[in-house]
């Protein structure tokens, strides 16, 4: 989008195809956006986003799917729901980002940052195996794959001291039930 700054974007429609798609598929109407920026001001990762939540909504309005699929924010959003919680119009921005992520993955778009997909895959694996995600085992898996053993080690130690990290994985009581559910879901998807 930045590279084409000197070619005006032509607004041929009063809304974009993506805007209509969101309304149809996940029932989110971004016409209610007041453009106030409360979502972005309080976004827990907004300071490192290339496009803040308000701009993401605006990009949907402009129908700029390329920028949306390629942006960094798509992969570093924590889905913490603060934007939704604070939005005066109740626009479910995390759901929009989920939808866009799904679309990007389906289209095979690679995240701009390294190892994002690996981390997500490992996290889902962890969830599939144990029914819950425990930070320490997940981090060990991730570091074994990437070889970055000492990255964030200091932060991890601090978190451990504050009791935010437990070395013992927590497990759900009947993980086999979850496994059954997941396999059913998988076969359903194949049909």
């Amino acid at each position, binding site marked *: 989008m930045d590279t084409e700054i*000197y070619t005006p*974007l*032509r*607004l*041929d429609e*009063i809304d974009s195809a993506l805007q209509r798609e969101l309304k149809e598929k996940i029932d989110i109407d971004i016409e209610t956006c007041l453009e106030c920026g409360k979502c972005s001001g309080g976004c827990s990762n907004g300071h490192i986003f290339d496009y803040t939540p308000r*701009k993401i909504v605006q990009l949907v309005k402009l129908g700029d799917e390329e920028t949306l699929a390629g942006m960094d924010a798509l992969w570093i959003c924590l889905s913490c729901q603060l934007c939704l919680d604070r939005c005066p119009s109740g626009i479910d921005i995390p759901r929009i980002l989920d939808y866009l992520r799904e679309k990007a993955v389906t289209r095979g778009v690679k995240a701009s940052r390294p190892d994002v997909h690996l981390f997500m895959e490992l996290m889902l694996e962890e969830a599939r195996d144990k029914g819950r995600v425990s930070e320490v085992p997940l981090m060990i898996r991730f570091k074994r794959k990437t070889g970055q053993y000492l990255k964030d080690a200091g932060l991890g130690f601090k978190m451990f001291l504050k009791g935010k990290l437990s070395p013992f994985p927590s497990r759900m009581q009947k993980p086999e039930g979850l496994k059954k559910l997941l396999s059913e879901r998988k076969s359903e998807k194949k049909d």
Partner: protein
Amino acid sequence: MDDRVKKVLVIGGGPAGMEAALKIGQAGFRAVLVEREPDLGGTLRKLVSSFPRWENPADLVGVKVQMLEGNRNIERLTSTAVLTAERFERGFRVTLKHLNNGGSREIRADAVILATGFDLMDASVYGEYGYGIYPNVINSLEFEDRLRGWKEGAESIPKGIAFFKCVGSRDRSKGFPYCSKICCMYTAKQAGLVKDLFPGAKVYVFYMDYRAAGKGYEEFVRDVIEKKHVRYVRGRPAKVLPEKGRLLVRAEDTLMGIPVEVVVDTVVLASAVVPRADTRALAKMLGALTDEYGFIEPLPYTAVRSGERVFFAGGCGFACETQGALQQGAAAAAEVIAFFNKS
């Protein structure tokens, strides 16, 4: 009629003047309502619908005119202008001129209410918008005429319309640093009406922000955006260019910081509200205060008083919507009645 009953001259037969004359007449004093146009109603008479309730302004004008006609304390003088006015004894001596037959007559009044209304600034000072050059770049009042025509049957269906807000208003380089207050609402109304008439039309409103301060106003604008699907684009348009018989509008989407453009058939300029050109001279003759723009200025700590025995209501004081004009008309009448009962 008893000559000892006090008499008020109301200048201007729009909603403010009509309401003021009506209340004075109903209170048992005499009112002379002077209107330059052949019909009462002022700017309101030219409007197609209203905010925030989509009511027909003609109904309101009709009701008021009927009530005025039914009150024998009120004299209505249409097609009549004020020629000269001066203070005389404890009141005014005013010469009125009939605009059709040229005849003039002198009347005495114990008080005057100014309700001369407002105008739109001449948008041709903006060369970049091409008002007065492109026939389809028109101002909001001209667009009301077009809306009326469309309501009665459209010759051709418009495909795209762009509304520009803050044309003149909030532009200190053109001499209008103030917000004209009513444009946000009437533009939303006009844009909504276009979508009602032609659901397939693409309607864009270019805005810096929309100011919807009033009961039901914010809801009105949101309905126009969300239910009638008018596209609001944040940014003040920079240029209108001809393109294959249509009009190309260039602006910045200030929310993203990128230049955008749209192609439309008609551009509607919500020009700044200004006082009528002759209001300043009239105010001077009557001893009323005016501000730097020519709007009537109230005396300190008053709402609708501008001098000894001179009151005002409606758009001549500052831009105001129909509700405001009616309220100020009633307020001016109340001030006059209180003044008469005291003296």
